[in-house]
C-alpha cells in the first residue's frame, strides 16, 4: 500500500511538472500574441504551436504510460468546503482560485463534459450511426480522392516551382569573368595576337625588362595604352540618314 501511494505521488509529481510546463508555454504564446503582435511572424507562432503540441503528446504519453497507475481508479473527494479565503490555495493557483467554496467543486472536479456538450455529442453520434454503411464509405472514398488530387496538384506545382528556380539559377550564366579578362587583355595588350607576326627586333627585350621591373617594384609603370574600344562615333553618327526635323 505504502509503495503504491509512493508510486502515485511520484507520477502525480511528474504530471504536475508536465502540466506546469504546458502552462508556461501557453502563457508565453499568449504573451507573444499580446505584446509582439506587430512584429510577430508566422514561423515563430508555428514554433510555439509545435512546442505546445510536443508537450501535449508527452503529457499524453505520461498519462498512458505503464508507470502511472490508473488514475481512473482513484477517487477525489472534496473534504472541506469553506467560504473563507484560503491563502495557501491562492498561492498554489497563482491567485486564480482564492477560496474553495460551494461553487468550485462542480466545475473543477468535473469528470464528465457539461450536460449540454454531452447532449450535442450524443446527437452527432446518433447521426453518424444512422448513416448507411455504404454511403459513408462512398463519402470517405470521395474525400480520399479529393485529398489525393489536391496533393498531386500541390506536388506538381511545387515541382514546377523548383524547376523554375533551377532555371533561374542557370540564367546568370550569361557572362563569364574569364571572357571579360581575355577580351580586355586582347584589346589592351594584344594577348594571343602578337605571336602571329614578328616584332621589331629590339623591342622585345626592352619590353620584357620593363615588365619585369614593373613586377619587381609592385608598382607597374604601364606604358601601354588601354584599348580604344570606343570607336569612330562620328562616322556612324553622321551616317544616320534621317535626322528628325
Amino acid at each position: 500500500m505504502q509503495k503504491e501511494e509512493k508510486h502515485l505521488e511520484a507520477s502525480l509529481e511528474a504530471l504536475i511538472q508536465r502540466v506546469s510546463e504546458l502552462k508556461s508555454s501557453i502563457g508565453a504564446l499568449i504573451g507573444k500574441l499580446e505584446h509582439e503582435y506587430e512584429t510577430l511572424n508566422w514561423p515563430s507562432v508555428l514554433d510555439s504551436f509545435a512546442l505546445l503540441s510536443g508537450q501535449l503528446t508527452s503529457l499524453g504519453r505520461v498519462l498512458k504510460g505503464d508507470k502511472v497507475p490508473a488514475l481512473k481508479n482513484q477517487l477525489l473527494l472534496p473534504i472541506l468546503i469553506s467560504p473563507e479565503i484560503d491563502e495557501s490555495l491562492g498561492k498554489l493557483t497563482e491567485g486564480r482560485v482564492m477560496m474553495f467554496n460551494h461553487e468550485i467543486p462542480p466545475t473543477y472536479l468535473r469528470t464528465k463534459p457539461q450536460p449540454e456538450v454531452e447532449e450535442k455529442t450524443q446527437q452527432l453520434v446518433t447521426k453518424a450511426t444512422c448513416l448507411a454503411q455504404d454511403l459513408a464509405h462512398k463519402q470517405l472514398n470521395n474525400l480520399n480522392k479529393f485529398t489525393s488530387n489536391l496533393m498531386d496538384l500541390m506536388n506538381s506545382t511545387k515541382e514546377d516551382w523548383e524547376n523554375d528556380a533551377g532555371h533561374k539559377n542557370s540564367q546568370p550564366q550569361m557572362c563569364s569573368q574569364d571572357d571579360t579578362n581575355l577580351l580586355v587583355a586582347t584589346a589592351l595588350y594584344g594577348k594571343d595576337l602578337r605571336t602571329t607576326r614578328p616584332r621589331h627586333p629590339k623591342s622585345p627585350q626592352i619590353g620584357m625588362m620593363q615588365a619585369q621591373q614593373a613586377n619587381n617594384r609592385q608598382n607597374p609603370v604601364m606604358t601601354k595604352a588601354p584599348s580604344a574600344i570606343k570607336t569612330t562615333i562620328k562616322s556612324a553618327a553622321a551616317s544616320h540618314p534621317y535626322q528628325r526635323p
Partner: protein
Amino acid sequence: MSEQNQTESILQAIHLTQKLRSSVAKVFQNMADGCSVEKGNEKHILNKFHESLLAVNNDISDLEKTGNMLVSPSPVTANSMYLSNDPAIDKTPVYQQILQAYKWSNKISDLSGLAANVLEAQNKLKRSQPITIMQAKRPKRLPPTGHAFPQTVVEQTLNRLRKLPEISDIKTTHPLGSHAVLQITLGSVLKAQVALRGLMIEWVNVRGYTEENPDDSKLELWAKSRYEVFQKVTESCTAASLYFYTPHNAEFAINLFMKWFTQYRTLFSAKCSKCCNHYLNGLPPTWRDLATYEPYHDACRQ
C-alpha cells in the same frame, strides 16, 4: 444533337448578333444626331430613347437564349482559343514600325507645309495651273500636259539624258511621292537640284561640287549656294527653264534645257565671247546664250 442543328443555331446566333448591333447602332445614331429638346417635348424624346433601349434589351435576351442553346465549342474551333493569346511582343517589330510610320507622317506633314510655303512665296510663276472654271469659258486652250507623265516615262527620259557626255550623274529621289527631284552632277564643277513635276521643271538650284549635302540622301533643294558664281548660275537656270518651257511638249523642253545646261561644264574655264576674258568683277562668265550656247559675263550680255 446533330451537326445540322448546331449550324443552324450558330447561324441564328450570328443573325441575332447582327440585329443587336444594328439596334445598338441605332441608339448611338440617335444620340449622335442629337436633337433640340423643346419644352414639354422631353417626354417624347425620352420615350423614343426608352423604346430603342428596350429593343436592344430584347435583342440581348434573344441572343442569350440562343447562346445558351449552343453546346460548348466543338473541337473544330480549338485553334480559335489562341486568338486572344498575345504574340511574342519582342519578336514582332510593331513598335519600330509604328514609330517609323509616325516619324514619316510627321515628316511628310512638315515637308509638305514647307514646300507649300516655299512654292507659294518663291515661285509665283506657276506653270501648272489647276483646272479651273475659267477653262470652261476658253475651251480652245488645252490644259498643259507637262505634269502628267507617269514615272516610267520620266525614268526613260532621264535615262536618255544620262547619256549626255557632260553629265556625270543624275540621281533621282521621290521625296514627296510621285514627282522626281533630280540631282545632276556636271563634271566636278557643280551640282544642280532640279525639282520636276512630271517632266516639267519646277525649280532649279545650283550649288558647287564641293558644297556638301549633309549626306547624299538628304536633298537640300532650297539652300542657296554660298558662292556668288553659283547664285548667278541658279538665276540663269531659272530664267532658262522658263524660256524653254513648252506646255504641251515637256519632253522636248527638258531636252533643250539640259542641252543648254550642260554648257556649264566649262563654267570656270570658258572665256567670255565678248570681252575675251575669264575674269570680270570677281566672276567667270556665268551666262550661256540660250540659242548659241556661247558664254558671256553677266555684264557683257547686252
